[in-house]
């Protein structure tokens, strides 16, 4: 979710097989320097893709002696997923970050074969995406400050996952500002 000079990215913590909950501490947001990547979908591919980009971004950093920008990361994710066009990773990634050259917030989402969905306001993904579209559409407004953005993204997420039997069990929320990132753990309903 985009705010004024800040962005937020949040995920729930459930890992399950259909209706059976296996774990209630399975974070889906991964950090790559200045860029944050959220991954929903098949758990094994969430781990595999997160590890793959850790490798790719680390190599990028060593080779170029700089952090990867959110935009460059978006194109890297897109090309990496499309490389597997005919045997895709079953994930729908979301990227959030601030471009330190322009100082502007950036978010985008992808389908499982790498088609980028740029957005000015918010990106949703996962089993509760229908509900998230509703809550985000209702709660989001332009130019929210970091505190208001945290409240908005948290309420949007918690209320969406409470209407989805396959999501929930706590949440991680990242508020990303130019020179500060705040990570908060939300307890959420444990049922």
């Amino acid at each position: 979710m985009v705010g004024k000079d800040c962005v937020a990215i949040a995920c729930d913590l459930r890992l399950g097989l259909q209706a059976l909950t296996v774990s209630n501490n399975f974070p889906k947001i991964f950090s790559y320097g200045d860029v944050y990547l959220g991954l929903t979908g098949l758990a094994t591919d969430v781990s595999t893709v997160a590890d793959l980009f850790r490798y790719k971004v680390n190599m990028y950093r060593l080779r170029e002696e700089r952090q990867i920008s959110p935009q460059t990361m978006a194109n890297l994710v897109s090309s990496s997923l499309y490389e597997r066009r005919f045997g895709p990773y079953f994930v729908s990634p979301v990227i959030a970050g601030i471009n330190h050259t322009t100082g502007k917030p950036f978010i985008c989402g992808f389908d499982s074969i790498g088609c980028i969905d740029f957005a000015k306001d918010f990106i949703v993904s996962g089993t509760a995406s229908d509900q998230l579209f509703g809550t985000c559409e209702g709660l989001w407004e332009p130019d929210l400050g970091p505190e208001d953005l945290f409240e908005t993204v948290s309420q949007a997420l918690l209320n969406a996952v409470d209407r989805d039997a396959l999501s929930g069990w706590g949440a991680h929320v990242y508020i990303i500002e130019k020179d500060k990132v705040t990570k908060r753990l939300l307890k959420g309903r444990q049922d």
Partner: protein
Amino acid sequence: MEVLLGLTGKDFTLVASSKAAMRGVTILKATDDKTRELNKYNLMAFSGEAGDTVQFAEYVQANVQLYSMRNNSELGPAAVASFVRGELAKALRSRSPYTVNLLLGGFDPITQKPTLYWCDYLASLAQLPYAAHGYAQYYCLSTLDKHHHPDIDLEKGLKILRMCSDELKRRLPIDFKGLAVKIITKDGIREEDWVDDKQVLPA
């Protein structure tokens, strides 16, 4: 009807697996051991397709031991779990995937913390306080949800395991020939003398 159960406590990890080796509805053996010791502090329990299980477990076992020979140091539980997941994930998208579900019981000699990793044949990996595979998930997780606590001692752990074992005996339609129970502590891996002769009748 293979049973894999694991739980951690204050200073130990328990791993239990059913002793029946089955083919279809036929029980071939009543003293099967569905675990392999990877090193002093890591135990892997496995269930799934007959040929794959032992093949994969011993492949992992050999590689974990090869690592310590080459590097003069043992892999910790997190490293073992990561390695196993990597191998399983690699196999998943190959021509011949392994159909193996795993529990990785461990004790980290550095942090002195017990660990338990749950990994299914899709290579979904999660570190958990207690875990099960197969039908045991449906029968035991609720019992564990109610009674488990991270700080329990071994006696309490075994008591909870007994409750799980009784429930399985009560509900499973086929005899799984009792459990083989292994305990991982700071002293390494040992097998518990698990007395399993008590009959549990359906309610």
